[in-house]
C-alpha cells in the first residue's frame, strides 16, 4: 500500500546523504518538491558562501546550522538570510548543515543548539552572509547590464535595475556572482524595510508535522537497518557484569546481544522484537559506587554543604559582606533558604540515534543538539579521523538540553560496529527517565541587611549545586566552579550596594546536566521569592518594592507593562490573589503575573500574563508560542515534576510517576512583547519557565500568608485544579 511513499522517503535520505545535508520539505508547492525528488542532480547548485546556494534554475537553498527542536529556528534563522538576500521566501529550500567550522556559534566557536542563543549568536553573521551574497548578485547583474550597482536592488528572488525596471532572476547571474569577491562589511537592509523579520511566518516544518511525513530521529530509516533495545544498570554508574546471551538468541528476529557502556543491547530485525527479547534477557549488574544513593541522603548532603565552610566567593560588590557579617552589622536582618528539585527532560520523543559504522567511517542520523560534540566523541571512541565521522540531524521531538550529550550517538555507533550493520537504538521511556542527566537540585540561602525602609542594603547569597555543564561543555567547569550554576546571580538589576555570591559545587552520585532554564530556574526562584518576602515585610506592594529597587530601563519597562496588562492595580476578586516575578535571563527581560485561588489545597490559576523584551521578536508568533509553552513547563516545575532516588536508582519510571502538565492544568496565558531594538537581542526558548515559578509561590503567599520555599509544591499537598 505505502510502497511508493516509503521508497520516496528512502530516496530523500539517500539524496540527503549525498549532499551532506538533510532535505526538509517546507510548505511550498508539492510539484516543486517532486521536481527535486526525481532529479536532484539536474541542476548544479552554486555556493555564494557556506550559508546559501543558488542553482541556475533559480532554486535558493538556505542552510540552518541550528537544530529544530520546536523552537522554530529552521524558520527564523533562514528568514534572516532570505531577508538580506531578497529571496522569494515561498520558494526557498532549507537544509541542516553538516559539522563544519563555518557553522559554529561565533561566541564560543562551537557547534551546538542550546543556551537560547541561536538567534543572538547567529543574527549578525547571517545578516552579513545574506547581505554579502546580495551584493555579489547585484554586481554580477549590474556588470551584465553595464549599469551602476548603486541603482540595483533585490526583491523576491530577482535583481532589479530601478531606473530601467529591468530584472534578472538570481539563477540567471549566479555563475557570474560566484566569481565576485564578497564585500567585507556589506550594508544591512534597514529594519523598517524588513518583509520577513519581525513578521509572523508560517513555520516551514509545520505541514510535515501535521501529515505524518516529518522525520524525527525515531522515524529515520535506512535500507538494511536493524534495531537495538537497551538496558542500563538500574543503579547510576553501575555496569552489566554478566548476561546470558543464549537466553534470547533463539527468539524471533534476534540478531545479537552486545555490551554497551553501563549496560547491554539486544539487536533484532524490529524494535518490538528487540524489546520483547530484552525482557527475557538475564543480566547481572554490578552496582558500583552509588548503590546507597537516595533522596534523603542527598538532602543531608546538601544541608551539610550549606551549613559548612570552604565556599568559593564568585561575586563581590561594595563591601561584599558575608551572611555572618551582615547578621553582625545590621539590626534588621532577614535570611531564608530555598530549594529546587531534580527534574527530568522527558522529551516526548524518547532517546534514539541511528548509526552506520564501517571499518573506516561512521555516519549517524539523529535528533541532536550537540552535533560537534557527537563528532568529537565518535572520532575519539572509534579512533577515526574527524572527517570520517558524518553527523546528520533529523527533527528533534523536544530536546530541552538532553540532546546536547553524545551518549546516544556513541551507543548507536558501538552497537553498529559490533553487529556490522546500520542500527537504530531506541530507549524505552523507562530508560529515558531513569537514565536521564537531571537538572540538579539546588539549596540556597539568602541573607539581607535592611535599612529603615526595609530595603536591602547588603545581600549575601549562597548556592549549593552539582554541575550543569560537566557533560556538555566541560571546558567551562573547574574543580570548584560551574558558571551555569550561577546564572542570574552574577549581574542583577536590583540596586543593592553590597552584594556577595558564594558557591559550592557539590559532587553527587546522580548524573546532572543542562535542562531548560539551567541555573536561572532555581536561582531566580530563590531571588524573586526573597525579594517578595522583603516587600511583604516592608508592608510595600511587591510591584512598588521592585520598582524602587530596579535600576535597568528595560526591566522597568517590562515591569510596568506587566502591571498594566495584568490589571495589577485593580483589586483582585474576593478569594483571588496575584503574584509577580521579573528577571533578565538568556539576555531577555521577562515578567509574569499569576492570578489564582485555592480551595482545599487545589490551586486554581485563573490567568497568567507575561511580558517579554527579547530585543526584537524576529518572529512574534513563534516567540509567543515558545513563551506560552515555557510557562506551561514552569507549571510542571512548580507543582508536580520531581525526580527522586532510592537504592541508587531513579524512582520515577514513566509518566504516571514523573508528572508533566496536562491540558486541564493549562490556564489562559497572555504573552505581550516589548520590542526595544535589535542591539538587545535575547533568547526566547528557555526564559518562559523562569519567572512563572516564583510568580506562583508569590501569589500563594499573597493569598494564604504561607510562604513555600521548596519545590515542587506537591511536597505540601498542593495540586493544580
Amino acid at each position, binding site marked *: 500500500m505505502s510502497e511508493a511513499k*516509503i521508497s520516496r522517503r528512502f530516496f530523500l535520505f539517500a539524496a540527503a546523504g549525498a549532499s551532506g545535508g538533510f532535505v526538509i520539505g517546507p510548505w511550498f508547492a508539492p510539484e516543486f518538491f517532486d521536481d527535486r525528488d526525481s532529479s536532484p542532480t539536474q541542476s548544479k547548485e552554486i555556493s555564494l558562501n557556506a550559508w546559501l546556494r543558488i542553482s541556475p534554475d533559480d532554486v535558493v537553498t538556505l542552510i540552518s546550522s541550528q537544530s529544530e527542536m520546536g523552537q522554530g529556528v529552521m524558520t527564523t534563522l533562514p528568514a534572516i538570510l532570505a531577508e538580506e538576500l531578497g529571496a522569494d521566501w515561498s520558494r526557498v529550500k532549507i537544509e541542516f548543515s553538516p559539522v563544519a567550522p563555518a557553522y559554529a556559534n561565533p561566541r564560543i566557536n562551537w557547534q551546538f543548539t542550546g543556551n537560547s542563543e541561536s538567534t543572538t549568536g547567529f543574527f549578525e553573521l547571517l545578516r552579513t552572509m545574506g547581505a554579502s551574497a546580495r551584493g555579489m548578485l547585484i554586481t554580477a547583474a549590474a556588470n551584465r547590464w553595464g549599469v551602476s550597482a548603486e541603482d540595483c536592488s533585490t526583491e523576491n528572488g530577482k535583481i532589479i535595475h530601478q531606473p530601467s525596471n529591468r530584472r534578472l532572476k538570481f539563477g540567471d547571474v549566479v555563475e557570474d556572482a560566484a566569481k565576485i569577491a564578497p564585500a567585507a562589511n556589506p550594508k544591512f537592509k534597514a529594519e523598517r524595510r524588513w518583509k520577513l523579520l519581525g513578521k509572523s511566518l508560517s513555520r516551514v516544518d509545520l505541514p510535515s508535522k501535521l*501529515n505524518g511525513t516529518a522525520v524525527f530521529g525515531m522515524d529515520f530509516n535506512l535500507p538494511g537497518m536493524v534495531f537495538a533495545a537497551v538496558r542500563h544498570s538500574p543503579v547510576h554508574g553501575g555496569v552489566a557484569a554478566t548476561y546470558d546471551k543464549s537466553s534470547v538468541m533463539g527468539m524471533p528476529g534476534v540478531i545479537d546481544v552486545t555490551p554497551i557502556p553501563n549496560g547491554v543491547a539486544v539487536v533484532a530485525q524490529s524494535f518490538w522484537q528487540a524489546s520483547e527479547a530484552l525482557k527475557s534477557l538475564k543480566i547481572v549488574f554490578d552496582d558500583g559506587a552509588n548503590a546507597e544513593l537516595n533522596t534523603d541522603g542527598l538532602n543531608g548532603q546538601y544541608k551539610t554543604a550549606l551549613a559548612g565552610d570552604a565556599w568559593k566567593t564568585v561575586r563581590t560588590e561594595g563591601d561584599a559582606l558575608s551572611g555572618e557579617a551582615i547578621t553582625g552589622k545590621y539590626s534588621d536582618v532577614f535570611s531564608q533558604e530555598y530549594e529546587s528539585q531534580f527534574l527530568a527532560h522527558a*522529551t516526548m520523543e524518547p532517546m534514539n540515534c541511528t548509526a552506520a559504522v564501517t571499518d573506516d567511517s561512521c555516519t549517524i542520523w539523529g535528533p541532536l543538539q550537540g552535533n560537534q560534540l557527537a563528532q568529537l566523541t565518535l572520532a575519539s571512541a572509534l579512533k577515526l579521523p574527524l572527517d570520517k565521522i558524518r553527523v546528520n540531524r533529523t527533527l528533534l*521531538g523536544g530536546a530541552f538540553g538532553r540532546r546536547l550529550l553524545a551518549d546516544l550517538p556513541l551507543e548507536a555507533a558501538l552497537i553498529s560496529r559490533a553487529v556490522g550493520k546500520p542500527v537504530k537504538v531506541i530507549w*524505552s521511556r523507562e530508560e529515558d527517565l531513569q537514565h536521564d542527566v537531571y537538572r540538579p537540585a539546588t539549596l540556597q540561602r539568602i541573607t539581607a541587611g535592611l535599612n529603615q525602609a526595609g530595603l536591602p542594603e547588603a545581600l549575601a547569597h549562597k548556592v549549593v549545586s552539582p554541575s550543569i555543564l560537566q557533560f556538555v561543555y566541560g571546558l567551562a567547569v573547574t574543580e570548584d566552579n560551574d558558571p551555569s550554576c550561577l546564572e542570574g546571580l552574577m549581574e542583577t538589576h536590583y540596586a543593592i550596594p553590597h552584594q556577595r555570591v558564594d558557591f559550592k559545587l557539590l559532587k553527587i552520585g546522580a548524573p546532572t546536566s543542562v535542562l531548560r532554564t539551567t541555573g536561572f530556574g532555581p536561582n531566580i526562584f530563590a531571588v524573586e521569592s526573597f525579594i517578595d518576602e522583603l516587600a511583604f515585610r516592608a508592608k510595600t506592594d511587591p510591584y512598588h518594592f521592585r520598582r524602587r529597587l530596579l535600576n535597568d530601563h528595560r526591566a522597568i519597562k517590562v515591569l510596568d507593562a506587566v502591571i498594566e496588562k495584568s490589571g495589577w492595580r485593580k483589586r483582585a476578586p474576593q478569594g483571588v490573589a496575584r503574584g509577580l516575578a521579573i528577571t533578565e535571563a538568556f539576555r531577555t527581560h521577562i515578567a509574569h503575573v499569576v492570578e489564582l485561588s485555592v480551595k482545599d489545597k487545589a490551586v486554581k490559576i485563573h490567568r497568567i500574563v507575561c511580558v517579554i523584551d527579547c530585543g526584537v521578536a524576529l518572529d512574534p508568533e513563534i516567540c509567543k508560542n515558545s513563551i*506560552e509553552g515555557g510557562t*506551561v513547563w514552569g507549571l510542571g516545575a512548580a507543582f508536580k515534576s520531581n525526580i527522586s532516588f532510592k537504592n541508587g536508582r531513579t524512582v520515577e519510571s514513566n509518566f504516571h510517576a514523573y508528572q508533566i502538565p496536562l*491540558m486541564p492544568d*493549562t490556564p489562559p496565558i497572555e504573552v505581550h512583547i516589548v520590542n526595544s531594538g535589535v542591539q538587545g537581542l535575547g533568547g526566547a526558548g528557555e526564559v518562559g519557565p523562569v519567572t512563572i515559578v516564583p510568580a506562583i509561590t508569590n501569589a500563594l503567599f499573597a493569598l494564604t500568608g504561607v510562604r513555600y520555599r521548596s519545590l515542587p509544591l506537591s511536597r505540601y499537598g498542593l495540586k493544580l485544579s
Partner: protein
Amino acid sequence: MRKINFTVNDETVSIEADERKPLLWALREDLGLTGAKYGCGMSICGCCTVHLGGDAVRSCVTPLSRVEGKTVTTIEGFSKDRRRPIHQAIEQAWIEIQVPQCGYCQPGQMMSAACLLAEKAVPTDADIDDAMSGNLCRCGTYQRIRRAIHRASELVAKGGRRK
C-alpha cells in the same frame, strides 16, 4: 507469526506478524507509517493515538489481534479524505493557529481532537480539557490546541475547507 488483514487509510493490508505485536509497531515497522509515535508504551501519553473503527485508541497497547478485520486511520490518511470534514478542519485550524512546536505529539492530539468533535460539534473548554487530558505535550502547546479545536469546530460549522 501469522497473516493478519486489516484496513489502513482506506487500503487493505496484509502483514505476517505475531498477533501480540502492538499496532503501533506494526504501523511503523511493517507498513512504514511513522506518523503515530512511540512515547511511553503504557497508554499514558497519547503520542501513538490512531483511529480504530472510528474510535481513538492507543496503538502502543493495542495488539494486532484486536485490529484484525478492522479499519485504522493514521495521521498519514487523516486529512486526505474529503468525506471527513472534521479532519480537514482540524488540519487547517492547526495551521492557522500555528499549534506545533516540536510536533512529536501533534498527530495524537489531532486524532483525539477529531473524536471529540465527532461526538460534540461545539465543545466547551471543559469538554476539551476532559477529552484531551490523555494527550501529553512537553512543549506545552495546550492553549493553542484548545484554540485550534474551537476554530476547527467553527470551520466545520461553516462547511469546512474550501479548496
